[in-house]
């Protein structure tokens, strides 16, 4: 049965009078993979550190299973952390690094042996017990750090941008691995990253943060398809954001024309932001219909072509598997469902 | 909490045995005790400081700084080439040579000075040698020259090591780049190597000048009983004459002067107090 394992109420953190975490509220369900996503400096790591007990909140409270933990130091919380730079103990070998937390709990040697082995199996590093941590690769160090944390069977695992130092292919492998581990172990994961693709891949829920404030909370699909404001629309995936006027419900005016859309609830003739994803746009050389524009640049990205098409009113960013030539005249097509309307300045 | 008590012993110790004694000296500097040390007159007085500036004592101060300066310059002139040579030897020999420079430093300072007593005396080894090759004997002991010699001998390694450390860390690619641009050896030295070694020079100078200016062992042993530098003067005031106030004033002036020279030199030093000794 799922419950709110962690609740954050009105959390505030200041450094030298600068507000880094600005009155945020959210909860985390048990056994969920939650990602706090945002650009550098948005307060996500600080939030994570407060949950872990490494920073003391200046305001608000953190509840762990409905119990206030603000004043409980990190070594007494049933939470373990995987640090960004791994923070492995250099003078101990892999076995001792992983066993560290168990030894503190004065667990029997035989049980330690079993649990370390279990953890090594989970991260696929069996046989590496006696190795020095300096003799393994970055990816392997990362896995040791994870093993060291999960061997303690915490209720919640905090991960602070753990995959940052790995190369692309390894990162993608580890993302899948982490998701698998989380589901197998049934532990709640709170993951912090600035990589939106990573967040979309692994998370059950994403909390988007910027400037110390929460911008949106939702599933990956929600966040991607229904961004609630311009920041989220721009941060997640790529977006075209245009100025528009909401003529009436379901009718948006931009690009010197009125188009059907699926949003309502705005004031008549309200100024709004119009968001359309580059991959939702189609181009055609048949220029009798649609919005007319000229291709300004074409970049091959492997997965698709990234093209900029200039109309009389806007510059459009388009992702398409069809290639067009620079200078070519094209028409821009999209469906009403592809248009997202947002209040200005949210 | 364990974490909170960690530096408390240190704070307690430093305040009690570093800060307070220093404050005591400042206190003595600005007070007098006309009726003996156990009845200090607590009124503020500049008498002691004024006494420092009397001609008799200024002469001694100036002489100390003068000799220290000469010794420092000699150390620089002798030490820089040595540091340069060591920095340019192969790794294998480098370590050996560095150790050779360091060993005398670690020999007891007094014994090293005492050795010169044996060498420089009228019947000392040096004169013995001169006699042997038919030259007349020289009276070096108990002169300024002997004191400067003692200073140079004792402090030369302190000049060599910082310069060596900086030279060693220097990027060889800079020299290569200069050569590539057509510079000759002398230009390379003048415009690249020497300027970049200045932090080391500054470090070395401060490690020679200060102890040289404030020495009292070298001047006492090699200068003789009547020979007075600041260090001897201070020792005399505290140990024999008993005028702690004047002695403190001298100490404060000495400290201030050294502090000023350190601050001036720190402007040229980019390194943050590197312990280039080891």
């Amino acid at each position: 049965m799922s419950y709110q394992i962690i609740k954050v109420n009105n959390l505030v953190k200041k450094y030298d009078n600068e507000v880094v975490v600005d009155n945020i509220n959210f909860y985390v369900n048990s056994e969920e993979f939650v990602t706090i996503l945002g650009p550098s400096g948005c307060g996500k790591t600080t939030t994570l550190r407060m949950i872990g007990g490494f920073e003391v909140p200046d305001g608000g409270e953190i509840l762990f299973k409905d119990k206030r933990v603000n004043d409980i130091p990190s070594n007494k919380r049933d939470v373990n952390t995987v640090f960004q730079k791994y923070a492995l103990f250099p003078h101990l070998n892999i076995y001792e690094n992983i066993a560290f937390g168990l030894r503190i709990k004065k667990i029997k040697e035989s049980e330690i042996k079993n649990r370390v082995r279990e953890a090594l199996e989970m991260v696929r590093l069996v046989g590496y017990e006696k190795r020095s941590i300096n003799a393994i690769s970055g990816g392997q160090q990362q896995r040791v750090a994870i093993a060291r944390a999960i061997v303690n069977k915490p209720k919640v695992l905090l991960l602070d941008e753990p995959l940052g130092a790995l190369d692309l292919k390894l990162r993608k492998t580890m993302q899948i691995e982490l998701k698998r581990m989380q589901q197998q172990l049934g532990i709640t994961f709170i993951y912090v990253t600035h990589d939106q693709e990573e967040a979309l891949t692994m998370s059950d829920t994403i909390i988007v943060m910027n400037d110390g404030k929460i911008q949106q909370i939702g599933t990956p699909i929600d966040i991607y398809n229904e961004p609630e404001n311009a920041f989220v629309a721009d941060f997640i995936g790529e977006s075209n954001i245009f100025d528009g006027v909401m003529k009436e419900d379901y009718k948006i005016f931009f690009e010197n024309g009125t188009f059907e859309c699926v949003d309502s609830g705005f004031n008549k003739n309200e100024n709004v932001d119009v968001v359309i994803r580059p991959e939702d746009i189609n181009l055609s050389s048949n220029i009798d219909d649609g919005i007319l524009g000229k291709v300004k640049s074409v970049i091959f990205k492997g997965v698709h072509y990234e093209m900029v098409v200039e109309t009389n009113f806007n510059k459009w960013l388009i992702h398409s598997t069809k290639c067009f030539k620079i200078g070519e005249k094209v028409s821009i097509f999209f469906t009403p469902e592809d248009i997202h309307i947002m209040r200005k300045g949210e | 909490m364990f974490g909170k008590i960690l530096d408390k012993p240190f704070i307690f110790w430093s305040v009690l045995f570093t800060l307070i004694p220093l404050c005591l000296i400042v206190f003595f500097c600005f007070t007098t005790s006309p009726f003996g040390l156990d009845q200090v007159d607590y009124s503020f007085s500049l008498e002691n400081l004024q006494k420092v500036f009397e001609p008799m004592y200024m002469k001694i101060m100036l002489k100390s700084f003068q000799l220290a300066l000469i010794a420092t310059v000699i150390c620089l002139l002798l030490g820089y080439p040595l540091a340069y040579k060591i920095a340019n030897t192969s790794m294998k020999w480098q370590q050996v040579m560095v150790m050779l420079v360091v060993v005398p430093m670690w020999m007891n300072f007094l014994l090293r000075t005492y050795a010169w007593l044996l060498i420089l005396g009228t019947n000392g080894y040096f004169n013995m040698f001169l006699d042997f090759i038919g030259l007349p004997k020289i009276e070096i002991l108990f002169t300024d020259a002997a004191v400067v010699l003692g200073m140079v001998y004792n402090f030369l390694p302190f000049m060599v090591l910082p310069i060596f450390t900086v030279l060693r860390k220097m990027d060889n690619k800079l020299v290569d780049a200069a050569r590539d641009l057509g510079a000759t050896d002398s230009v390379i030295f003048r415009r690249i190597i020497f300027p970049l070694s200045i932090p080391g020079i500054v470090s070395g100078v401060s490690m020679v000048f200060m102890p040289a200016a404030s020495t009292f062992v070298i001047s006492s042993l090699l200068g003789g009983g009547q020979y007075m530098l600041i260090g001897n003067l201070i020792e005399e005031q505290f140990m024999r004459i008993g005028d702690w106030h004047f002695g403190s004033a001298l100490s404060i002036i000495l400290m201030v002067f050294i502090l000023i020279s350190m601050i001036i030199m720190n402007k040229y030093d980019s390194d943050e107090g590197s312990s280039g000794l080891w």
Partner: protein
Amino acid sequence: MVKKHISRIYTGLIFFFLYAPIFILILFSFNEKKNLTKISGFTLKWYFELFKDRQIMQAIYYTFIIAIIASIIATIIGTLAAIGLHNRKKSKRKTALLTINKIPMMSPDIVTAIALMSFFIYINQKFSFFELGFGTLLIAHITFNIPYVILSVMPKLKQMPLNTVEAAMDLGASQFYAFRKVVLPEIFPGIITGLLIAFTMSIDDFVISFFTTGHGISNISILVFSSARVGINPKINALSTLLFITVMFLLILINKRTKKV
């Protein structure tokens, strides 16, 4: 080519300059007769005289005992201080403490010496405490040793991988446990280096010891100073030789350590 020879000769001359006095001392420790002017025959008698001389042996004893105790205490205080200071956030207080730490190192020996001496005598007059003797000598040595320890340990602390102490606490360690099991092993080489430096500083000290000792307690340096003013003493030469060997030994030891580290 000429350049190379000149530089070689130059280096040789400098090293000759540095070592000649020491070797002369050593050489004449084996000399039969006391006087300087002739080499009269090889003998080890001065070494035996050395060991029979109570005053010298006592000085040697005190030198080492003070060095050992002072360096150990300074290492303990200094190591804890380095960790405490390292953990402090940048603040005026931290800067102040670091500056205070530098004071003994930055001040001329003689000023530190008379400051301590005046302090001891003054307190002794008022409170009959800190009478000049073994205790004050020890206190003085600890005082000037602590900065060297702190300066040896702090770099090691800065080199520690980020977050390891937090990681230890995250895994359930108390602050003391984390200190014992994570920090200490990491900084241990720095502690040992600090200990050795402090030890060497103490062995060699003259000025501070001269002013802060009492009750007839001497160390080697003070002894040489008093003897030297009287005249030549071949026993001192013998002592020099033994000390030279000790220093060489210690240095090779430290060298091996820094190579390992």
